[in-house]
């Protein structure tokens, strides 16, 4: 127990140690996080009226970001599958970064849901009367927290073993890895079902949403990890081979193609049928009743998606420059399409045909930025701590003499 507390203490200490760039980056993230906290405190004082949400569009930027991030978290499984199932050794030394990303991202998801609550002070009502299995939201609570615990366990165990200088025993983590793979698919499916099960919202009430969720998650997630790994290998002593990046590239390639295909399926069904069902999609892509706030966004997303997919298909994307550009395009495109593009149009027009647009307020944007900064902060600390520990540079053994020397 003492050893474990010492481990946590060392991790804590380690997260403050770095060169000026590290400190600058962390200070910047802390400032943005605190700005978000400030905006959230104002929201607590004034209520959700501080946001741009209304009775007409009752979910906005918070739930949009939540939805996107669930996908990012699920994508950690895309790193794990080739390593543990297909024994692809290129990815073996990077898989932990995917799982750490999942932990940080799930924390962000939970924060996004919390800031969306009108009465966060009644949070414990969830434990007292849990409408399971009827409410899909309760499924999501279980799925997300379960995934968080699973990944925390796997990462924590591996890093702690490295810290203790012993070989991790497969029994304590390999079964959890396989559970986490299935669980990753479930978090995204359950989150999709949250929307899909509502008969009163035709835009969501479609079976294609869940598969599209998965396809876009498995594109945006690994794309994000491709970028992260390059930052890790640039700024730490951890080695990441190009082969690992190119394996991820292949995953993104396939996922982007499937995502585009499913998009075409959805658009065809909506617009060729041209029934009353199409109103929300028409609002999203062409505007409705003179209101068209989302039109430039969604076409930007479609354009970026097409360009990213083309780039990924071309051999040029084997060079890191093109690959990185394509990754950024894919990440942004999917953030627009799965965030604002999926959540907001479902509310426009309302079930009674009223068209009220949604514009996030500065508060809302600050809170979102704050949560993103907090997530990046957490992830940076995770990477900062895990790299030297996994490399065997920080262990319980080589801290002891110092400890002894210090005690009078």
């Amino acid at each position, binding site marked *: 127990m003492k050893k474990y507390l010492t481990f946590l203490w*060392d991790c804590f200490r*380690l997260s403050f*140690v*770095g*060169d000026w760039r590290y400190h600058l980056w962390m200070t910047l993230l*802390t*400032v943005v996080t*605190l*700005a978000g*906290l*400030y905006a959230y*405190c104002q929201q*607590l*004082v*004034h*209520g*959700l*009226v501080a946001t741009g949400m*209304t*009775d*007409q569009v*009752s*979910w906005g930027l918070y739930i949009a970001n939540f939805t996107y991030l669930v996908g990012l978290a699920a994508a950690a499984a895309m790193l794990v599958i080739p390593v543990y199932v297909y024994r692809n050794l290129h990815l073996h030394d990077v898989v932990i970064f995917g799982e750490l990303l999942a932990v940080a991202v799930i924390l962000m998801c939970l924060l996004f849901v919390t800031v*969306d*609550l*009108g*009465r*966060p*002070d*009644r949070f414990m*009502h969830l434990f*007292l*009367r849990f*409408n399971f299995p*009827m*409410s899909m*939201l309760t499924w999501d*609570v279980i799925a997300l927290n379960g995934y968080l615990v699973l990944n925390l366990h796997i990462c924590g165990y591996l890093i702690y073993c490295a810290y203790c200088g012993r070989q991790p025993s497969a029994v304590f983590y390999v079964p959890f890895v396989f559970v986490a793979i299935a669980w990753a698919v479930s978090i995204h499916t359950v989150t999709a079902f*949250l929307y899909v*099960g*509502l*008969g*009163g*919202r035709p835009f969501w009430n479609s079976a294609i949403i869940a598969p599209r969720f998965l396809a876009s998650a498995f594109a945006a997630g690994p794309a994000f990890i491709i970028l992260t790994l390059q930052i890790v290998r640039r700024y*730490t*002593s951890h080695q990441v081979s190009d082969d690992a990046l190119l394996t991820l590239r292949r995953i993104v390639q396939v996922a982007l193609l499937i995502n585009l295909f499913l998009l075409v399926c959805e658009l065809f069904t909506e617009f060729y049928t041209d029934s*009353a069902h199409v109103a929300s999609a028409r609002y999203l892509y062409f505007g409705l009743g003179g209101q068209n706030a989302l039109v430039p966004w969604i076409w930007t997303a479609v354009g970026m998606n097409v360009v990213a997919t083309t780039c990924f298909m071309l051999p040029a994307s084997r060079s890191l420059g093109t690959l990185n550009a394509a990754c950024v395009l894919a990440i942004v495109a999917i953030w627009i399409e799965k965030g604002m593009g999926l959540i907001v149009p479902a*509310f426009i027009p*309302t*079930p*009674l*045909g*009223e068209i009220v647009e949604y514009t996030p307020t500065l508060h809302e944007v600050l809170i979102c930025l704050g949560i993103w900064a907090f997530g990046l902060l957490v992830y940076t600390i995770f990477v900062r701590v895990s790299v*030297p520990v996994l490399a065997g*540079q*920080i262990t319980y053994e*080589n*801290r002891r003499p*110092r*400890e002894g020397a210090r005690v009078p």
Partner: protein
Amino acid sequence: MADLHARTESDQTPAAAAPELTRRNFLSQGAAALAGVTAVAAAVSPLRHLSAEHVPNLDEFLQKHYKEMTAEDKQRVFARISQEVQQRHQVQARLSDPPPLDGVEYVYGLNLSRCIGCRKCVHACVEENNQSRSPEIQYIRVLEMEKGSIDLETADHHYDPASVPNPDKYYMPVQCHQCANPPCVKVCPVEATWQEPDGIVVIDYDWCIGCRYCEAACPYWARRFNFADPQIPSDKLNPNMAYLSNRPRERGVMEKCTFCLQRTRVGRMPACLEVCPTGSRKFGNVLDPNSEVAYILQHKRVFVLKEDVGTIPRFFYYFDERGGRYREPVASPDVGGEA
């Protein structure tokens, strides 16, 4: 690469970095810690404006779900609520908790041939049910519809002529349909909303966590959220309140039409019906074969909104066979005579 080695060295000595407590170290770390604490304090500083009524006291925090309250629990909670109303509005509230009546299932019928779109029901509802006047919350939305169409997307929500009705339009008021298969109840993660035995869907405002999933699930846009503190002038407050219906709500929770259960469960009619100048609104017990609503369901041309979403509403619309509104007099139906 040189830089990388430099950091690796410092990586190896995390424990040693701080313990060397030089004056310089102490000052710089102290200053950093102080700056950090100040920044956090500044970030949470808006909380000083949080008024006492927004911070739940222990009683409120530990209050049970409505269905789990004993009679004594209810007495205590009702006393607290009355006291809060007294403090805020200097009004003596008569807080009740009328139970659903045995053998009663309420339904509501709306005569589209007669409704003139005057919106008197909207305002009577606001006054009866203590809805917020600022920001405005209304349970009933009257739609001005194009004749010959029931497409809600052609409806005008904000019609504002000098006089109604416009002879080229018809009017369709929409409020909570008290569905027999309510999607809002299904999705609530904390069971803060449920269907009572008489068919009325209610909310425990003290249990709702404000996630607004029910608002997203409702196909009739019947639920409202308190985005801000509801404002009601004290002289407009209706002191006849029920726990599950028209008692004042707090910020951050959902609310909705409850068929005025504080009235209807003690034998009165809903406020929207009472105020209607055209008799377009009919309310009653569908299980009673002699009721007016039972007669209408059997003899009129009846439909429900969005039948395809499978909600099985207890709110239906109907037409008169001849005439309409008041232009062509229609003999009042011989209520119960043929049933």
